[in-house]
């Protein structure tokens, strides 16, 4: 009996010590909840954490005399893990701001927590435009890109350059269908038309049947409304079946890491839209050089956005003189965002970070002069052209 009592006492003591942990000398806590091990891990993952740490270092490592600490957790693409981690940090970890990476479903779940716990929340990487629509909150800032901007970029450029008829290969889930819908609107508005679409289950490895259907449609453009491995596999098969010779491939979402793993041989000639590219100018190259020294890879657009979002948040805390969520959000909303990520960013009433976007074409192996020399700029779109100038009316927090 004595033994059992002492065990119980130990458990109780441990539990108590765990609960008092959070009450130390209040650092400013930035959290990152992202996919670190799944299919999107190469897009941001550990590189995103390093980018945030770089931004913290560039802000002097502290703000308002308080040290800045960075937490990170893997949501494993499961909404329950992402949301409960966020909730826990907000309740017990003294969390001041959260960056949510990849996977729209997980980020919608986390947005609900942001609203309940009043914590500034910056999703970077999920494409779903509903994050600033039906699922928006007064504490969300959707950074880097959304499906609307991707469709506006790639689709409008291709239609205007003569690619009038399209066939879509669409990933069969919300993100894919949203991409296809936005792109269809753009195509129709510019005088093109969609000849057909096939909705492919997520994680399909063999795309040849669908490509054959695309080819049979006689369309000029092959629209790939998918992402990650789905995107790589579909483009690879399109090459193998010689479909890229008769149809122009258009990626609605592709990252530098995807192009790198596909190689230029396969990806050449592809059109895509991106928020940022490492080789745009001196500033971006300087950032990329520092990043490369740590990660041995060039940064993707969203990794750069991680850096920018952290920098802007810490600036806003400094200007507002507090970490109070409402005051920091108000400060961010009235700031013009200008750093190495973008020069003309601002936060729209629904929480969308509007900034200019780039339409790119992937270089041929012959055009590529040095490692990671992958993109050629086709068009720079203003923020309004990319995202639209009006806030999303379905967002309940937009004041009318």
């Amino acid at each position, binding site marked *: *009996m004595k033994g*059992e009592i002492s065990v*119980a006492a130990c*458990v*109780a003591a441990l*539990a*108590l010590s*765990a*609960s*008092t942990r959070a009450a130390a000398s209040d650092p400013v806590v930035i959290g990152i909840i992202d996919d*670190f*091990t799944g299919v999107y*891990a190469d897009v941001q993952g*550990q590189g995103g954490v390093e980018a945030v740490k770089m931004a913290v270092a560039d802000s002097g490592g502290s703000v308002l005399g308080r040290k800045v600490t960075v937490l*990170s*957790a*893997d949501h*494993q*693409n*499961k*909404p*329950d*893990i992402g*949301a*409960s*981690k966020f*909730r*826990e940090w907000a*309740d*017990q970890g003294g969390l001041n701001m959260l960056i949510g990476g990849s996977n*729209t*479903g997980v980020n*919608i*779940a986390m947005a*609900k927590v942001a609203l309940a716990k009043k914590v500034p929340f910056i999703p970077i990487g999920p494409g*779903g435009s509903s994050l600033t629509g039906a*699922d928006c909150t007064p504490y969300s800032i959707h950074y880097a890109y959304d499906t609307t901007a991707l469709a506006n970029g790639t689709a409008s450029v291709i239609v205007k350059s003569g690619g009038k008829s399209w066939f879509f290969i669409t990933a*069969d*889930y*919300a*993100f894919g269908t949203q991409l296809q819908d936005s792109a269809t609107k753009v195509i129709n508005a510019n005088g093109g038309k969609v000849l057909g679409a096939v909705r492919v*289950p*997520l994680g399909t490895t063999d795309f040849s049947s669908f490509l054959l259907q695309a080819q049979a449609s006689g369309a000029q453009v092959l629209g790939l409304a998918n992402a990650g491995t789905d995107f790589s596999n579909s483009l690879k098969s399109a090459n193998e079946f010689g479909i890229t010779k008769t149809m122009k491939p258009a990626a609605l979402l592709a990252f530098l890491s995807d192009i790198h793993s596909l190689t230029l041989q396969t990806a050449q000639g592809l059109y895509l839209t991106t928020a940022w590219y490492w080789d745009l100018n001196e500033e971006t190259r300087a950032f990329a050089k520092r990043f490369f020294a740590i990660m041995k890879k060039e940064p993707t657009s969203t990794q750069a956005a991680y850096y920018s979002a952290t920098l802007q948040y810490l600036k806003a805390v400094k200007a507002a003189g507090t970490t109070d969520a409402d005051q920091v959000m108000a400060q961010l909303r009235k700031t013009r965002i200008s750093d190495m990520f973008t020069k003309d960013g601002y936060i729209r009433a629904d929480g969308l970070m509007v900034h200019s976007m780039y339409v790119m074409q992937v270089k041929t192996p012959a055009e590529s002069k040095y490692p990671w020399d992958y993109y050629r700029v086709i068009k720079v779109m203003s923020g309004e052209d990319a995202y639209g100038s009006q806030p999303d009316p379905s967002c309940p927090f937009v004041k009318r």
Partner: protein
Amino acid sequence: MRAAAVYAMLGALALAAPLLGLYPVFLMKLLCFALFACAFNLLLGFTRMLSFGHAAFFGSAAYVTSWLVSVHGWGAVPGILAGVAVSLLLGLAIGAIAVRRQGIYFAMITLALAQLVYFICLQAEFTGGENGLQGVPRGSLFGLIALGPDATMYYFVLAVFAAVYLFIRRVVHSPFGQVLRAIRENEPRAISLGYRVNRYKLLAFVLSAGLAGLAGSLKSLVLGFATLSDVSQGTSGEVILMTLLGGSGTFLGPVLGAGIVVTLEEYLSDLVGAWVSVIIGAIFVICVMIFRRGFVGEIQRRFGTAVTRRS
């Protein structure tokens, strides 16, 4: 006497846990998965049927409850009951096909049918596809007690868990449970004794499916959403791991196993990244090779022999 002391201590700890400052949402999640593992154990531990598709029941009940509560404004209790009803029916349908086969065949059939359920959840309109159903309110107990506050919800979940735990104990010790054990030990003999083995197995399957559904419904209210990962194959694998690790065929084993796995997932994944699946895989291997009884099973064995030696 000893067992009573252990239970009293665990009960007191569970009641006092939120007061001790343990994080209530985490505790609730843990209880929901413990409930899920107990339901699964009813099948694996006491009937020796390995279902590789139990997430189908867990997840579909979570969807149904979330949908009724968030879209149609049902209360928490009717929502949960509806979720359980759906998983019972689903259990009846899947079970009727699966119990005709044994062992590995049974496992493969449950796995494949669970994939079908996954597909339906992905395609159906009401489930919200890839994004799932989000922002499900917790509602209240018969309009009297609001379940919104974590502490209230915690005691509600704890009460449900305790009731189900006692119910499972009761079932296992009942004549019905005895027949199940007889089937586990020697199915041909049970048949020759005149038992309609398939009926017993089907009943056990449906019961286990319904309780797994209860766990899923509760989880969806606790965390406020139902998503595809609830019905996915990964969740089916996790519940097997929990049961195996804690000790299948013991009562406390699945609870402990669920505690270990949920804690590992929550805290370990941040420390080791991709290695978390290596670690979980290694636990599987270790369990199967040298730890087949699981934690609680091993403790009971050592504890048991010590007692006999003394007397």
